[in-house]
């Protein structure tokens, strides 16, 4: 045995096949239906926006890691691709390239690396990028091309207001919303908001592959439905218009910025739903999912502290460990 050198390490000596890389690329795969549908609906514009955003995020991540942060290059783990894709999903298809690149820079640079890179960020980078753009370029960020109308054009695509925008302006009554159209993707909006079917397909994939659990998406959707039912709006209208599905399935479930425990996830989801509806009904903006997620991202560390898992063998009143 002297010639044979054994490897020694601590237990456990087995490891799951799950990797960060696998989970990240799983999310990318889950986003594909929505991406494909958006290209189908918006044509050239969607392609330009998606490519710019993904390439921009990956390049910025690479440059920051290479020249600013140092250490092992982890661009290939797919997290920058997700950020890019999600950012693109949140943008209108007629957004100029330079604005998209600013969004990428904010998302990766400010949202992720300013906090210390993957796993350290408090706010979801893609949402941070989108909200930054929404506040900085409100004009460009709120003119939404109408799907299936001018698929061959990019910057000069025909535009119209979204369902939520028209409802805000009292141009459209909730009763008159074309639900079926919203469901399969006839309504205007950002790239990812168009088709509910594609998003739900992606969400199903994520849950089946155990990349996310049902807690966050479902609690957001249920809260939004209940809230709008109480407010006298058809819950389906609230769910299918705007970014509730995209936000609840893909944005709010980001590992880094969402709570750890099941109970924490449900609280987080419920609060996102409530804030979303409050902004929609009484706020200045027609849509509030991004803001709601961003606000709750900030509360996540607090939720992690107060929504601890219940310890085994811990009885009510028997808090010896807390002394």
């Amino acid at each position, binding site marked *: 045995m002297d010639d044979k050198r054994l*490897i*020694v390490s*601590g237990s456990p000596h087995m490891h799951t096949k799950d990797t960060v890389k696998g989970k990240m690329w799983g999310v990318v795969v889950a986003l594909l239906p929505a991406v494909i549908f958006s290209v189908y609906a918006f044509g050239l514009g969607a392609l330009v926006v998606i490519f710019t955003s993904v390439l921009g995020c990956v390049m910025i991540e690479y440059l920051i890691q290479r020249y600013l942060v140092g250490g092992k290059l982890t661009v290939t783990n797919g997290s920058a691709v997700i950020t890019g894709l999600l950012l693109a999903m949140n943008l209108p298809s007629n957004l100029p390239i330079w604005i998209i690149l600013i969004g990428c820079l904010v998302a990766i640079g400010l949202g992720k690396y300013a906090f210390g890179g993957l796993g350290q960020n408090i706010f979801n980078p893609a949402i941070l990028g989108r909200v930054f753009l929404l506040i900085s370029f409100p004009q460009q960020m709120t003119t939404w091309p109408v799907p299936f109308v001018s698929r061959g054009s990019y910057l000069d695509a025909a535009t119209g207001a979204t369902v939520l925008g028209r409802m805000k302006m009292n141009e459209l009554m909730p009763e008159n919303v074309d639900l079926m159209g919203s469901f399969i993707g006839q309504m205007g909006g950002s790239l990812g908001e168009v088709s509910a079917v594609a998003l739900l397909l992606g969400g199903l994939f994520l849950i089946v592959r155990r990349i996310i659990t049902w807690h966050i998406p479902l609690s957001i959707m249920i809260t939004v439905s209940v809230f709008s039912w109480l407010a006298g709006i058809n819950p389906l209208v609230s769910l299918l218009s705007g970014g509730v599905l995209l936000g609840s399935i893909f944005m709010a479930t980001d590992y880094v910025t969402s709570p750890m425990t099941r109970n924490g996830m449900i609280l987080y989801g419920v609060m996102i739903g409530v804030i979303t509806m409050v902004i929609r009904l009484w706020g200045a903006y027609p849509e509030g999912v991004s803001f709601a997620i961003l606000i709750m991202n900030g509360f996540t560390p607090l939720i992690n502290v107060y929504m601890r898992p219940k310890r085994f063998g811990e009885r009510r009143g028997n808090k010896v460990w807390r002394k």
Partner: protein
Amino acid sequence: MELVVLSVAILGGLGIASAVILFITAKRFSIKENPKIAEIEELLPGANCGGCGRNGCHDFAVACAEAKTLDGLHCPSCKEETMAKIAEITGLAKAVSVKPKVAVLHCNGTCDNRPRKSYYDGPMSCHIENSLYLGARGCAYGCLGCGDCVDACRFGALAINTRTGIVEIDTEKCVGCGACVGACPRHLIELRNKGPKGMRVYVACANRDKGALAMKECRVSCIGCGKCVKVCTHDAIVVGDNLAAIDFEKCKLCKKCVAVCPRNSIVAVNFPIQKAIMAEGQIREEVNYVENI
């Protein structure tokens, strides 16, 4: 115009009001501290190494300022002049000078002397490796080379030599605070008298196995043969548990034991180069130390 005056007045008023409040609170709640404490703390290195036996530099400064005598209060990382200045500030007699100490590693199990016998695949922590097994080098007593002591050192005096795989102590930087002593899970580091010009003789081994077993494990292991005990004229060496130990208070640096050790496990460092007896397989960097002096 009215607007400008109004805003200036409001902001200025706010500023003055806040200043008054701050002034009053600062006066009301100020804690009177011995001014000597701040003066002394200024002189200290601020590394909070704990080498003085207090909880950090501030604690030491407080102790100095309040002490009736400076005996027993010694900052190992301060120079003599600094201690003299502290004595000046406190107005007390200078403490009896304490012999400067330096950390030494009781292991010379370099890659050459003690080849790797297994792979350790886990976090770089001596404590963790030590709790799992005897270590990748096949000696249950020797340096593991993961660098827990390096992390503990606040003065950058310790480093893992990538060529030898064990930790090396920079005599120049080491102040003898002893942080590394507690960090080593195998208690391999000891504080010894620095000796004149840094010259010192010590046993670079901690192997307590019986001779035959110890010989197998490392080329420079102490086998407890006792030859050094016989040759020592100062009664400075004792062998216990198959391991020799040199008492640095008694050792007169005659280096007879170095010459007689059949295993080359007694190391003499910082002796003038023409007289230095460099043991075979000893760390080559030792030579550099000598040349630096």
